[in-house]
C-alpha cells in the first residue's frame, strides 16, 4: 500500500470518494437492473415464462432477431467498405463522407424514423408509386429493418477507421508489390489486421440494433404480433399496466445486453492484447 508515493489524500477522503461512486452505481445501475428482474418475477416464475411464451412476445423476439440479423451484416459490409475507403485512400469528399457516417448518431432517432415515413409513407415521395405496385414498406418489417440499419450505421465504421488509420497502408502496399490483387490484399492482409476491431464494432452495432426504440417506433405502426420489436412490445405492455409481462420482456432485452457486454469485454481484452503486442 505504501508503494504509491504520489497518493496523498487522507484515507477518509479516499473512502468517501469510493463510497460515493459505489452508491451512485448502486442507485443508477444495479437497483434498476434488479428492479427489472424483480418486477418480471413478482408474480412467480410461471407467469414469467407464460408471458414470454405468449405468441405476441415470441413474435416480438423473432422480429428483433430478424432485424439485427439483416441490419448488422449490412452495416458490417458497408462499414468495412467505408472505413477502408476513408482510412486507406485519398479522394475528394472524404470529409463529407466522414460527417455523413456520424449523421445517424447526431440526429434524434425519431427524426431518423421520420425520414423513412417522408420517403416511403402514403404521403411520402415514393409512397404513391410503392402503393401502386403493392409494396409495403412503412408500418411493415422493411421499414423497421431500414430504420434500424440507418441508426446503427456508424458503429462498425467508427470503430474501424481509427484502427485502419493507425495501421497505415504499408502492409497493403507490400502485398501489392508481392503480386496480390485487390481482393487478396483485403482478405489476407487488411481483414486479419482489423478482425478484433471489426468484431467489437459488430457487437456494438448489434446491441443498438436490438435495443433501438425511437426510429423503429415511428415507422413500425405497432401492429401486435407483426411489427412489434421487443422494445416496442415492452412499451405496449407497460402502457396496458401489464407490468409483469412488460418486465419479463424487458428482462430478455437486459439479458441480451448483458451477453453483449460480456462478449464485448472478451473482445476488448483480445483487441488490447494485440495492440500492445504490436508496439513491443
Amino acid at each position, binding site marked *: 500500500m505504501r508503494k504509491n508515493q504520489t497518493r496523498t489524500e487522507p484515507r477518509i477522503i479516499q473512502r468517501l470518494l469510493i463510497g460515493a461512486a459505489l452508491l451512485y452505481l448502486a442507485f443508477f445501475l444495479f437497483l434498476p437492473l434488479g428492479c427489472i428482474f424483480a418486477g418480471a418475477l413478482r408474480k412467480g416464475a410461471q407467469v414469467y415464462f407464460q408471458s414470454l411464451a405468449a405468441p405476441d412476445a415470441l413474435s416480438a423476439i423473432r422480429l428483433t432477431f430478424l432485424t439485427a440479423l439483416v441490419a448488422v451484416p449490412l452495416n458490417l459490409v458497408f462499414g468495412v467498405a467505408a472505413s477502408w475507403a476513408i482510412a486507406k485512400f485519398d479522394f475528394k469528399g472524404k470529409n463529407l463522407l466522414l460527417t455523413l457516417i456520424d449523421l445517424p448518431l447526431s440526429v434524434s432517432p425519431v427524426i431518423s424514423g421520420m425520414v423513412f415515413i417522408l420517403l416511403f409513407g402514403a404521403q411520402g415521395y415514393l409512397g404513391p408509386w410503392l402503393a401502386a405496385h403493392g409494396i409495403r414498406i412503412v408500418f411493415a418489417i422493411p421499414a423497421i429493418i431500414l430504420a434500424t440499419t440507418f441508426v446503427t450505421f456508424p458503429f462498425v465504421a467508427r470503430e474501424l477507421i481509427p484502427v485502419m488509420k493507425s495501421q497505415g497502408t*504499408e*502492409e497493403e*502496399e*507490400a*502485398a*501489392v*508489390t*508481392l*503480386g*496480390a*490483387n485487390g481482393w*487478396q490484399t483485403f482478405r*489476407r*492482409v487488411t481483414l*486479419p*489486421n482489423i478482425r478484433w476491431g471489426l468484431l467489437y464494432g459488430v457487437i456494438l452495432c448489434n446491441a443498438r440494433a436490438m435495443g433501438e426504440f425511437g426510429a423503429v417506433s415511428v415507422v413500425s405502426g405497432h401492429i401486435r404480433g407483426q411489427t412489434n420489436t421487443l422494445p416496442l412490445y415492452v412499451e405496449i405492455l407497460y402502457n396496458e399496466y401489464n407490468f409483469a409481462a412488460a418486465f419479463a420482456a424487458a428482462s430478455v432485452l437486459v439479458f441480451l445486453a448483458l451477453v453483449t457486454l460480456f462478449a464485448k469485454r472478451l473482445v476488448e481484452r483480445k483487441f488490447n492484447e494485440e495492440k500492445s*503486442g*504490436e508496439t*513491443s
Partner: protein
Amino acid sequence: MSIEIKNISKAFGNFKALKDVNLKVETGELIALLGPSGSGKTTLLRIIAGLETAEEGEVYFHGKDAQDRQTKDRQVGFVFQHYALFRHMTVFENVAFGLRVRPKKVRLPGEKIREKVHELLKLVQLDWVADRYPTQLSGGQRQRIALARALAVQPKVLLLDEPFGSLDAKVRKELRQWLRRFHDELHITSLFVTHDQEEALEVADRVVVMNEGKVEQVGTPDEVYHNPANVFVLNFLGNVNLFHTRVEEGKAYIGNLAFQLGKKAGTEGKATKFYVRPHQFELTRTPIGGNSFRAKLRHVNPAGSIVKLEFISEWGDPVQVEITQPVYKELGLKKEEEIFLTPKEIRVETGESNYFDQVGFAGEGGGI
C-alpha cells in the same frame, strides 16, 4: 532488367516532390538514391514500383513503357523502411505470401513453396525463426525477412526504401556490408534510398545525389566524392570548410590574405565562397607558399582512425582539419599552438549557377 526514367515530375498539392527527373539504371547495378529528407528520393522509388503515379514523364522497364502496368504486375521487390511485415503471419507465411497469391495456373504446389521459403530463409540466415511472428524479431532480423519476402517472387528489380534507417549504428554497418555481398551474388538490379552519405558511398556502384526534387549528380562514389558537380553535392558528401572571399586577378582575397588560384577560376571582382575539405590541408610550422595561413589549434578529437582538429584561422573563421594518426604524432601539436595551414585543393563557387571551378595545387607550384 534496366530501368529508364524520363522527365518524371510529381507534386503533392503545392509541394513539388520531383522536377523533371531523368535516370538510367543498367541491369545488375546497385544504385543509391542519396539526398536529404524531402529531396524526392522515396517518391522516385515509389513511382518506379508503381505505388505512386507521376504526373509527367515515363518509366521504362527494359525499354518498355511501364506506366500502365500495375504494381502487382511490375515484378519489383519492395523493401519498406519499417519493414511492413504482415503482423498476423509467421515469418514463414510472410515469405510465402508472394508465392501463395499467384494465380492458380502458375502457383507452385505446397511442398515446393515450403522448400522455396526455407531456401530463402537460409539465404538471409534466418531459417530458425520460421515459426515466429514479426514482433518477436529484432529490427535487423525483420529487415532481412522483409528482403527474403521480396525476393520470393523473383523480382527483376529490388527497391529498398531507407533499408537500414531504423537500425542502430552497429547493425546498420553489418547489414549494409551484407547487402553489398548479397548483391554481388544475386546481381539483381537494385535501388536503395538513403540519407546517409557514408552508406551510399560504401555500398553502391553508382550514387544518385538528389536535392529538392532534382538529380544533382549521378556517378560512382569516387566521382561524386572527388568531383562533385556543384556546391550541394560537395556539402552533402562529407564535411567541407567554407570561406567567404573576393576573387580578383586569379587570386582569392580574405582580408589581407591572397590565395593564388588556378587558371580556371572565374568570377572576377565578385564576392564568392571557396571550399576546402578537412583532409585537404598541409600542416607545417613554417609557411610553404603564398597560400599558407596561420591558425591556432582550438580542439582535438583523436578518437578514431583519423584525428579531427579544430583551428581558428588568422582572420577568425573556424577551420576543420583531418589528418592521419601518424601525421598527428609526428607533428606533436599542442593546444593553442599556432601553425601554418596550406590548402591542397580549393574549390571556388562561380557566379550565377551553383557550379564551380576546381583549383588544385599541391605539388604544382605550392611551394614557391
